[in-house]
């Protein structure tokens, strides 16, 4: 299983773009990169996934370089409600392991 490394915590201000980078040097050919968001007292929520290049949905964008050894989750114009823990994980046809995540704190 590919191990992921991401910052423990980040602070940002409302209205800013937030980028959270995750490294996964040992990613396998068949692995997908997936990001989850977790609010207090709730289960994690899938927000975006990708294999390579760029993926965008209504919540976020995910940038993956050609070597796929890292990925960056981009949250445009964050608000206070984006304060949460964000998990990066790499998933193949196997069990899904969560790391410690990045605790994002949005300030007014």
């Amino acid at each position, binding site marked *: 299983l590919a191990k992921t490394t991401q910052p423990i915590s980040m602070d940002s201000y409302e209205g800013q773009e937030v980028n959270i980078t995750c490294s996964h040097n040992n990613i396998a050919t*068949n692995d997908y990169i*997936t990001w989850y968001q977790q609010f207090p007292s709730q289960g994690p929520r899938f927000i975006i*996934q990708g294999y390579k290049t760029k993926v965008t949905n209504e919540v976020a964008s995910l940038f993956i370089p050609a070597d796929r050894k890292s990925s960056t989750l981009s949250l445009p114009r964050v608000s206070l409600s984006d304060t949460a823990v964000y998990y990066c994980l790499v998933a193949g046809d196997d069990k*899904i392991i969560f790391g410690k995540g990045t605790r994002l704190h949005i300030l007014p």
Partner: protein
Amino acid sequence: DARVTQTPRHKVTEMGQEVTMRCQPILGHNTVFWYRQTMMQGLELLAYFRNRAPLDDSGMPKDRFSAEMPDATLATLKIQPSEPRDSAVYFCASGLVIGTGELFFGEGSRLTVL
């Protein structure tokens, strides 16, 4: 709106008692995961099933924990006997195409063992 349903949402029990947590996965999903979350350890994978068959339960303390899927609509996690260190939030998640990492989580069962 399809969702994973977990019961009970909260449980307080005394050490030594049996605890059973239940999960109803989203209809049609063929893979079910059980996770435990604490402040110290984060999200730990306890066990997972595919098509009702257990694929991996290496994350569970074997002497006291057991996980089963009696049918496609029910997954259970049992602790017997419970201990204070089992206090945590237990999450169930289900999915269909696990290779992409997309899981749908329930709201969790918060267990407190006194």
